């Protein structure tokens, strides 16, 4: 049995997961992927990892079906042949979930600083500007108010292609502001995460974003506002071990890697052969760590359903594109909404809000 975990994975993983596994490997090492090719081999000749197939991003890694960009967008980036879920960028995720025109971004002007003057093989600032150019985003998380299936919420989505979706000060701050807006206005928070974990280039400050986002969720919970956490492939490390794990409802996309430690670390530490579905959404579901595994085309209706249930059936659906009113925080807001909604129907049908 070869010691190299890549090799091991490709042998033991069932066909259905192998694509996602490859993606996950890229996921954990996204930041070094390109260096390995361009720079590092010149500097330090050492054991070459076994050659990995470089697939076009629009080619399904499982069944090799290829899609044109607009085709793939139209099918929500799910392979129509085998059901493989391709990664979705932050903005496209908003398009998929929010009602058209309803998304009002917040905290747009935030950019990462470089408090540690961090340089590994390349300076952190260089990696940042590269990610900005590649994704067109300011950092790995975007947030805004929106409606999903008519239900108002605050929506945050992560972009894995921005430095592996890693959480530094900016991601922590945007999530916190989004959560605070939800708490203030009494509207539910929905987050869609896809992250390799905390951002090493900000070291201890990145670690503290775990505490910061947990504090934000604490305020949210104290305000009696629901939080729905959607875990997309992969949600690992400091993100799943902080806010993403604390949703009142936690759902995941099929095949998503959801683990605190990555498969490679676990394999190297325990020297055991990992189960084929290690850390996968399906395994997490079996172990009671998440509420549901939801296919991407069912995600929006499912979120709509959850949000409707949270509102106790008394939330008045907003007009798409309409402004979200800013009622006083928490319980008060919900009571007010309940009272308002009762003019339109029988308030007792669903028991009303808590």
């Amino acid at each position, binding site marked *: 049995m070869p010691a190299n975990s890549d090799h091991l994975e490709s042998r033991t993983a069932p066909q259905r997961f192998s694509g996602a596994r490859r993606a996950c490997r890229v996921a954990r090492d996204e930041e070094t992927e390109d260096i390995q090719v361009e720079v590092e081999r010149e500097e330090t000749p050492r054991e070459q990892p076994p050659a990995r197939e470089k697939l076009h991003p629009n080619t399904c890694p499982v069944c090799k079906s290829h899609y044109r960009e607009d085709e793939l967008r139209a099918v929500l980036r799910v392979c129509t042949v085998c059901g493989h879920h391709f990664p979705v960028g932050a903005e496209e995720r908003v398009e998929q979930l929010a009602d058209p025109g309803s998304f009002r971004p917040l905290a747009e002007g935030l950019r990462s600083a470089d408090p540690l003057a961090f340089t590994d*093989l390349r300076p952190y600032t260089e990696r940042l500007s590269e990610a900005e150019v590649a994704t067109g985003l300011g950092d790995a998380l975007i947030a805004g108010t929106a409606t999903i299936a008519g239900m108002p919420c605050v929506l945050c989505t992560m972009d894995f292609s921005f430095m592996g979706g890693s959480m530094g000060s*900016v991601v922590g701050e945007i999530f916190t502001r989004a959560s605070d807006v939800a708490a203030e206005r009494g509207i539910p928070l929905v987050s869609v995460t896809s992250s390799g974990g905390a951002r090493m280039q900000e*070291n201890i400050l990145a670690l503290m974003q*775990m505490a910061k986002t947990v*504090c*934000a969720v604490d305020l949210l919970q104290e305000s009696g506002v629901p939080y729905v956490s959607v875990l997309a492939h992969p949600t690992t490390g400091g993100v799943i071990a902080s806010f993403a*794990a604390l949703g009142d409802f936690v759902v995941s996309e099929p095949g998503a890697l959801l683990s*605190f430690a990555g498969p490679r670390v676990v394999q190297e530490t325990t020297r055991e052969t990992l189960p084929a579905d290690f*850390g996968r959404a399906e395994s997490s579901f079996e172990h009671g760590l998440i509420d549901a595994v939801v296919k991407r085309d069912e995600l929006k209706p499912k979120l709509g359903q959850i949000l409707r249930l949270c509102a106790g059936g008394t939330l008045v659906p907003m007009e798409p594109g309409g402004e979200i009113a800013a009622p006083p925080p928490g319980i008060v807001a919900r009571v007010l909404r309940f009272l308002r909604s009762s003019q339109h129907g029988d308030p007792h049908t669903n028991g009303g809000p808590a």
Partner: protein
Amino acid sequence: MNSRLPTPFRGLRRRLAERAAESDIWEAVELARHDSRPYTLDYADRLVDDWIELHGDRAGTDDHAIVSGVGSFRGRTIAIVGHQKGRDLKERAFRNFGMAQPQGYAKARRVFALADRLGFPIVTMIDTPGAYPGVEAEQGGQAAAIAQSMLAMTRLRVPTVACVIGEGGSGGALAIGVADRVLMLEHSIYSVISPEGCATILWRDVNQRRKAAAAFKPTARFSYELGVVDTVVAEPSGGAHKDVDRAARLLGDAIGQALDSIEAEPVEQRRALRRAKFRRMGVWLEDGVLVGEKEHDLDPAGLPAE
């Protein structure tokens, strides 16, 4: 003077300075992991009287990587929760090298709840390479256990003090680190990933761990400058293991001061103040303006203060 040197020599001087900074930081890493460095129970022995150790998560497991108990500390009963590493090979295996399973964090949570109910201030001691990365740990919800432990700490009504006494490794450390005051021993480290892990991922070579440590600066001084810890606690010269009694006295004084200052704050605001403290953490640019940086400038080369 410097500018007159031919270019290659200027480079050399910079590289020498970098090398010096690198070895200073690496020294801190090695001291933090020193074999004879005092662990949680060593401090508990010296800090409190009438110590009673508490065991188990009340759900079928007692994780030995986390120890907990109550005792009398300078006139008040406090609860102590901390990671515990092992001294010899056998004890190390018993303590799982201070790497907790999800059940360990459940144990911590139940002691937090007990202390909160009975009004015992909580002192946590952080000393772990990280939460245990194992298959069963993952299946048992390691990530959620860490998140819930942090959440439990944000809600406590009693004063809380976290002390980084050795290795503050990643989420496994922070899980018991969300406190009103965070103290850090002079020669301990606090980081998002181990230098080895960082070197493996960013340099693709574990042998670059010194460089990695120098780049991400896990030392007490930097953590203080970044506003992550409130107090750096001095250690006896050469490190806490040179004089454990004195190290414990110094730590005890710092804990006592921290508790006094927290107790002076209004109880009803404690949770909000704690939230506000962590809410402020981070450094970023907002519309081009730097936000969150503390007044004193960082020394980018990581050289120790003169």
